[in-house]
């Protein structure tokens, strides 16, 4: 089911009625961001946007919100667009277990069509624009960045493919924010300890499977390309970069090759973040771009990010939930049912589990805090019974409202780590965390009056089938 490239996926979206072309002239600011924000406000089944008439440009084409809804996420996985979210989660988990799928190597790629190595000016090459009013500049925020581990360059999985915001700060200069919990921070540190620049490659306009793998919290030595292969069910196609031993996604629209300048920090930001708050202005590493290649008339892909929900939340919802689910299952293989860590990248996580004895659910919550992703997120963990669907918030609220006794079931663990972008962390990067146990107490925990749970009238399943058929 693999998509050949970015255009192939856009074509599928169009065929499925999930691509809206805006041919009226729009201003780069504030129209592009405003239209996208408005679209995100209109629900969770919205189409991607394609702008082809932008004030001041002759031929710029910009695609946004490409994965910004559950139908588009289902299509990314090659599933019917109306596939329910819970089914998408379990299918993603199934494919996650097919990891690793070795890559397929190619010699050339469509993006070799046009190559620029002299007088690079990113402001000329890319139709850049501002998203939120307080942003310090124009950003690349849906580009993937590839880098390699310097201590162990031969272990394939330690080549990292990640999604990082990058501010365009000069004709051939970018600023990058390496959050310490993310793999790029390790590679930059290795290079700077040697006093060397770190070679990197940046791909814009990728088909969505590599973007999904790049934004999945994989373990450090797991390859995003090999995960992309597992998700799409066939080997992922890559081609070598020219200035470094780095693999690039074959289907990208634009490639930038360059290096992180060792020991350099420069003012960057602020940027409106997925937390619904701006990051402050800080001094961050700088990337110098030495080589650009792109397809003729490239399509520039961008995403609107801001107060949830936006495309970011659809993009990192299921793929954040699944690694937590798998890692919890490693610890409790017979109990864990499903994990919903879709809220603000898993700052809130909801876990559905069977319980073996009194206090078990709290242990499940503690384990979530110590998973690799939990170390930077999972500020609030809600644990619910096996018969509560963690993707169904009314059911979760029912469990909280009836199963939880604040005296016994609210556990606060002080002084844990969190990503520094959490605006509530104090100091940045530190927080207390809370587990809310909304499971039914079982022996030897004999609290409450839970011996008469409500059941349904006999025959409900048959009526569900019958009525849903009649309603078609």
């Amino acid at each position: 089911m693999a998509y050949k490239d970015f255009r192939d996926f856009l074509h599928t979206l169009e065929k499925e009625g999930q691509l809206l072309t805006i041919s009226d002239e729009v201003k780069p600011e504030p129209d592009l961001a405003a239209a996208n924000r408005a679209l995100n406000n209109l629900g969770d089944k919205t189409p991607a946007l394609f702008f082809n008439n932008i004030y001041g440009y002759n031929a710029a084409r910009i695609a946004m919100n490409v994965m910004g809804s559950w139908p588009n996420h289902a299509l990314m996985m090659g599933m019917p667009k109306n596939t329910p979210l819970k089914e998408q989660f379990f299918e993603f988990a199934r494919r996650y277990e097919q990891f690793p799928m070795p890559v397929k190597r190619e010699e050339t790629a469509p993006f070799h069509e046009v190559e620029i190595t002299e007088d690079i000016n990113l402001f000329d090459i890319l139709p850049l624009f501002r998203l939120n009013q307080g942003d310090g500049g124009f950003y690349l925020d849906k580009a993937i960045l590839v880098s390699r581990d310097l201590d162990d360059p031969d272990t394939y999985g330690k080549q990292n493919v990640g999604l990082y915001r990058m501010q365009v700060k000069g004709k051939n200069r970018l600023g990058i924010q390496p959050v310490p919990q993310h793999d790029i921070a390790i590679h930059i540190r290795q290079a700077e300890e040697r006093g060397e620049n770190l070679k990197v490659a940046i791909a814009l306009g990728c088909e969505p499977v590599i973007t999904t793998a790049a934004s999945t919290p994989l373990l450090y030595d797991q390859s995003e390309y090999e995960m992309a292969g597992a998700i799409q069910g066939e080997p992922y196609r890559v081609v070598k970069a020219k200035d470094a031993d780095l693999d690039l996604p074959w289907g990208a629209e634009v490639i930038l090759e360059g290096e992180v300048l060792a020991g350099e920090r420069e003012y960057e930001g602020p940027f409106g973040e997925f937390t619904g708050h701006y990051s402050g202005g800080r001094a961050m590493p700088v990337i110098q771009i030495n080589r650009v290649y792109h397809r003729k008339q490239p399509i520039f892909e961008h995403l609107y990010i801001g107060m949830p929900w936006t495309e970011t939340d659809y993009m990192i919802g299921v793929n954040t939930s699944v690694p937590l689910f798998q890692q919890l299952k490693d610890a409790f293989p017979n109990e864990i049912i499903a994990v919903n860590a879709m809220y603000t990248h898993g700052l809130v996580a909801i876990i559905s589990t069977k319980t073996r004895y009194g206090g078990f659910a709290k242990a499940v919550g503690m384990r979530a805090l110590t998973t690799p992703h939990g170390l930077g997120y999972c500020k609030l963990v809600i644990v619910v019974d096996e018969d509560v669907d963690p993707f169904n918030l009314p059911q979760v609220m029912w469990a909280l409202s009836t199963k939880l006794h604040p005296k016994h079931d609210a556990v606060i663990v002080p002084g844990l780590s969190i990503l520094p972008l959490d605006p509530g962390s104090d100091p940045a990067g530190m927080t207390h965390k809370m587990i809310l146990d909304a499971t039914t107490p079982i022996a030897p925990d004999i609290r409450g009056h839970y011996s008469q749970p409500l059941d349904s009238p006999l025959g409900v399943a048959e009526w569900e089938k019958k009525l849903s058929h009649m309603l078609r």
Partner: protein
Amino acid sequence: MHICPRCESNRSEVVTRSPVKGAWEVLLCPVCMFTWRTSEPDSITDPAKYKSAFKVNPQDIPNATHVPPIPERVQRRS
């Protein structure tokens, strides 16, 4: 030379002009790295109307927190 709406330095430079002549220019401030397009709303382009919470004092820039800190050089035995 142009005034940066954010830090009010007067060193901003044009980094690109619109492919369609005369529509806009993009300017970059080398002091605070702010970037803006001349066709943006005046709450972005006018120093007097730029939101005060987002103003930057050029004197604070050299003291900005390093994220991440620059590590010590490590000598490696070959």
